[in-house]
């Protein structure tokens, strides 16, 4: 009897742990500044103060190919797990981001996210990527052409319980 009770306690404890894990936050809030990088100029990069966090990256290669970095738009999106959210880029291309949930492991939350950008005229996705990002970490997507320069998406997300 004692052994069975002990076993039941272990099973119950494990179930509670699993339930606790399953009950973790199912939403993520993503901050996505969209930056326009333009060439030209000779006095060092001109970086919009609103994106000062990214200054040290834009001051290094390969971003030294551009001179002006201006914040064109900023998306603040609340993502429900596995529900894609689409937003429009300044070049009119639709981008879609999906929060795919947490990854297991110790330490800070890590989130799985998927980002794709469509090319409506050519009916395909230019890029489709799934990545795992630390809570509050930032990943930059660069390359969409726009008005003589390129667009930079800086994706940073965090979860809320």
């Amino acid at each position, binding site marked *: 009897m004692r052994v069975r009770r002990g076993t039941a306690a272990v099973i119950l404890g494990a179930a509670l742990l699993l339930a606790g894990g399953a009950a973790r936050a199912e939403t993520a809030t993503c901050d996505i500044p969209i930056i326009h990088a333009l060439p030209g100029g000779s006095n060092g990069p001109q970086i919009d103060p609103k994106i000062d*966090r990214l200054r*040290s*990256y834009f001051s*290094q*290669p*390969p971003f030294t190919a551009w001179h002006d970095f201006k914040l064109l738009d900023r998306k603040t999106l609340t993502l429900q797990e596995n529900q894609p959210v689409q937003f429009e880029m300044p070049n009119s291309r639709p981008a879609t981001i999906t929060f795919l949930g947490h990854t297991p492991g110790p330490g800070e939350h890590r989130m*799985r996210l998927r980002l794709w950008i469509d*090319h409506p005229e*050519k009916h*395909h*996705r*230019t*890029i*489709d*990527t*799934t*990545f*795992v*990002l*630390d809570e509050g*970490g*930032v*990943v*930059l*997507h*660069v*390359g*969409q*052409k726009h008005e003589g320069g390129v667009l930079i998406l800086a994706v940073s997300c*965090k979860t*809320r319980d």
Partner: protein
Amino acid sequence: MGKAEDERLQRYFDGELPEADRAAVEAALTEDDKLKLAALGELRGLVGNALSAEAADIDLWPGIEKQLGASRNAAGKAAAGARRRWGLRAHPASWSAGLVTAAAAALLFVVQPWHPGHAQNGCDIESLETVGAVASVIHMSDTPHRGDESTTVIWTTEDD
């Protein structure tokens, strides 16, 4: 209503009037005064709530802890360096300054082909597909001043 009266109303609103003056102002409030007080209250709520909400999720400790750890390590190395240079006109301040400069210069810029499951700097790329474009993955680190700042750059170059 003149500026002086408005300033007095402001002091009343901010609770900065002596008790006797406060009571006198309160007894003499006009409807216009009450509207102004309501407007000031609304502004206080807007500014206070906006900034408080923006601060709700802030967690400074990880960055602070990292800086404190870096400071302790640098201080330890500087102390060790000073001891080694004893008798050679050691300048502990310049040692620590040199260490900080060296650390600040340690910017990493690594461009590499993407490999699935390649763990890097807090962002792991699980899959990456492109059509009509070529993609590169770049891992960039920041200076120690900004703490845990590093980023992964996914660079796509579209075919013309």
